[in-house]
């Protein structure tokens, strides 16, 4: 396949503007949320939730294909939201369990979402292609309605995280100390988890499970390596997430790659770059 080149990309900017804005917004929000995901050592949570979000979409398509569009459940967005939030709520009940048991339930949720999605895909007929798009990401075109959803979701989630940032940070870094100082630890943890679940649910339908998982882990990994404090890491992760979303989309067009894979690869490259920056900084500091 011949590469399209960046000139062709910029010539068709009008066509790609909305997907790039959507990718940037999603990358920024998930990049910021990813800092909490990494700090709380729940990387597998976002993988599990994105699979459950996919399952919600598959369930809606399956319901529509078999029983017609007569129920709320046939709305992919609604079904995905319900399944993801329900999974997050169930997982939050197990916060006092041992780490091994928590990990086991995350594995259960991941496999339930992944296996369920693939199983339903075989019963949807033409919807199978849509399922593949959701799993691996193909945000080639973003509908105006989707862009609006991304914008409203991003503003709402970012607003909550700016407002409650200090509380979210405290329960992520040292929950026992926060509890002793009287912070509403349980509420903060549930709200943090639900905001992550909401973001994953909304964005999985638009970008796909693969880039959503990548954005919720990789920019935060890189940001935590190059930042001197956590608030800085939040800002850096949001910026790197936005860069992964937009540059990944451009690379997908120019080099003929699947969008989700391209965005994940850019995020991976950023992590590798951050390791070099870290290494160079430490080396300079030691000489």
């Amino acid at each position, binding site marked *: 396949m011949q590469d399209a080149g960046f000139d062709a990309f910029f010539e068709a900017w009008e066509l790609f503007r909305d997907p790039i804005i959507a990718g940037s917004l999603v990358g920024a929000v998930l990049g910021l949320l990813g800092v909490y995901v990494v700090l709380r050592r729940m990387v597998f949570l976002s993988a599990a939730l994105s699979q459950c979000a996919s399952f919600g979409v598959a369930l809606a398509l399956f319901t529509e294909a078999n029983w017609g569009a007569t129920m709320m459940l046939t709305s992919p967005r609604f079904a995905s939201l319900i399944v993801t939030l329900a999974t997050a709520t169930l997982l939050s009940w197990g916060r006092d369990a041992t780490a091994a048991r928590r990990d086991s339930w995350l594995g259960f949720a991941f496999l339930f979402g992944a296996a369920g999605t693939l199983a339903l895909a075989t019963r949807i007929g033409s919807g199978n292609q849509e399922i593949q798009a959701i799993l691996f990401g193909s945000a080639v075109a973003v509908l105006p309605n989707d862009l609006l959803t991304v914008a409203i979701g991003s503003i709402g989630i970012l607003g909550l995280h700016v407002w*409650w940032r200090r509380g979210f940070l405290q329960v992520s870094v040292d929950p026992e100390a926060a*509890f002793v*100082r009287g*912070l509403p630890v349980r509420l903060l943890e549930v709200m943090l988890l639900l905001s992550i679940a909401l973001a994953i649910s909304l964005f999985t339908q638009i970008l796909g499970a693969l880039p959503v998982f990548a954005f919720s882990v990789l920019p935060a990994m890189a940001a935590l390596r190059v930042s001197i*404090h956590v608030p800085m890491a939040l800002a850096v992760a949001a910026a790197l997430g936005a860069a992964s979303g937009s540059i990944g989309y451009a690379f997908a067009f120019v080099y003929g790659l699947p969008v989700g894979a391209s965005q994940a690869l850019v995020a991976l490259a950023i992590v590798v770059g951050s390791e070099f920056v870290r290494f160079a900084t430490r080396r300079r500091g030691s000489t």
Partner: protein
Amino acid sequence: MSSAAKPSALLTTTGLVVGYERRGILPPIDVTVRRGEFWAIVGVNGSGKTTFLRTLLGLLVPVAGSLEWGPESRVSYVAQRSEFDASVPNRIEDFVRAGFDRDWSFLRFRHGDRRAVEQAVEEARCGHLMGQQVSSLSEGQKGRVRLARALVSSPNVLILDEPTNAVDSVTEHAIFETLDELRREQGVTLVVVSHRTHVFAGRATHAIFVDRDGGAVLTGSFEDVVKAPELLSRHGPLGGHPDGLASRRGSGE
């Protein structure tokens, strides 16, 4: 002194039984902790000291009895091992500032944080470490930074769990000197767990001796508790050895 002249109680426990999964590990404990007192919680490794402390803090549910914090109490806690994850970027000032938020205060914009942080690191004698990453500190320096974080919210009750567990004797002495100063000069109430009992000599005003194996709890003035026949018959005199009670039972929990 008459009871009417005593400072108001900051903490009262009545028949408090501590333990896990609804099973008590110690007999009921009755204590009243007042402003400016220094309570030493002593006992061998695995005797229930930390379980008692975590119950006071609300991190464990009491098996029976009650505990009540007074309305004036502002509690800060220094854990035995705080989370110092080297992968988390955390400058001293950011780590200390995190101790500032109380209750729903995290929703309000704050003024004067910097001054409070500076004062806390000064009191904990770690001001010279500002700007450094927490992960790069020695154990003794980490202990001081933890103390600064506990002090930043101006507590009147400071609860510390083995604050000098991994430090040398010089640093240990300096940390306890700092704590004693806080008590004498600011009236901060101290509740400190340590198995190295010599650190309490000449400092602690009260003591709680816990012995899970022997099913015993002794409470009262420090002098009375360390001289109690029950304790002496089981463990001999306290405070003579740098490792205190731990030396009599070997090491490790």
